[in-house]
């Protein structure tokens, strides 16, 4: 299945993917900092992902790839 995969260590928590997602499954977790000191975003309901790539377009930090996940 094609799905958005977040490389969390690249994320700067800007939140642009959150608003870009047409199915509203991306969230920015305001409680845990990644190693760069940012609150990273991620998909909360992966199974709902339609792999549209909108988040890829929106993300300024190349955090997200759309790829086959088993």
């Amino acid at each position, binding site marked *: 299945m094609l799905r958005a995969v977040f490389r969390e260590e690249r994320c700067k928590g800007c939140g642009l993917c959150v608003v*870009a997602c047409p199915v509203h499954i991306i969230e920015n977790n305001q409680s845990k900092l990644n190693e760069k000191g940012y609150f990273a975003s991620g998909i909360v309901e992966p199974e709902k992902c*339609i*792999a549209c790539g909108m988040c890829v377009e929106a993300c*300024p930090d*190349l955090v997200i790839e759309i790829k086959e996940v088993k």
Partner: protein
Amino acid sequence: MAKERLHPKSIQDKVWHYCPGCSHGIVHRIIGEVIDELNIQKSVIGIASVGCSYNNYEYFNFDVIQAAHGRAPAVATGVKRVLPNNVVFTYQGDGDLAAIGTAEIIHVAARGERLTTIFINNAIYGMTSGQMAPTTLPEQITKTTPVGRNTDYHGFPIRISEMLALQEGTAFVERVSTHDVKHIIKAKKAIKKAFMVQQAGLGFSLVEVLSTCPTNWGLTPLESQEWIKDHMIPYYGIGNLKGKDIKV
């Protein structure tokens, strides 16, 4: 609609240093993808300038030359005249291109150098922490316009795309925006076309990208997107200014 979107070959696997929400990252990704799609990674030569993206050669996975502030178009000219068959582009901010580099960009356009310029217009000097740029909007507050840009005192923003479209050597000019996905996709199309216009030898091509600088605008990344939409686009307009009908 769903298709694989992997890390572009033409982008190295490094975390870049831009601030959260900064458009530089979006445009970098677009450039990497376009170069992959045009299959020119082996021949393209990028010219980095002076601004927050001064070291984009650490991120791009193709040959890059770092140029002095404002002089990327001259450096690119030197490159292209020696290697007319390579694809050559400059990547410049508004301080770099529209202030100190004004003469250089106008003259590559007038000469019709077969070059492409990606012009990041974020209406401010990012790297040096937020001074007025030539493209700063009227009333906009920056470190050097602490009570807002007063056109009577500080002058008017320069409409770079319009000015360059006027040059006969210019083949293609488009102003695009990064404020939402729809426009980001359009931006990519324009950038791709600009490269193709160069490949076709038609003249100079430029894409002006209305961009965010959340850090120096003092806004969140999301507010910054809104600010492009609410302030920059109304002032500058977006769309094609030259070469719309070119088929490449």
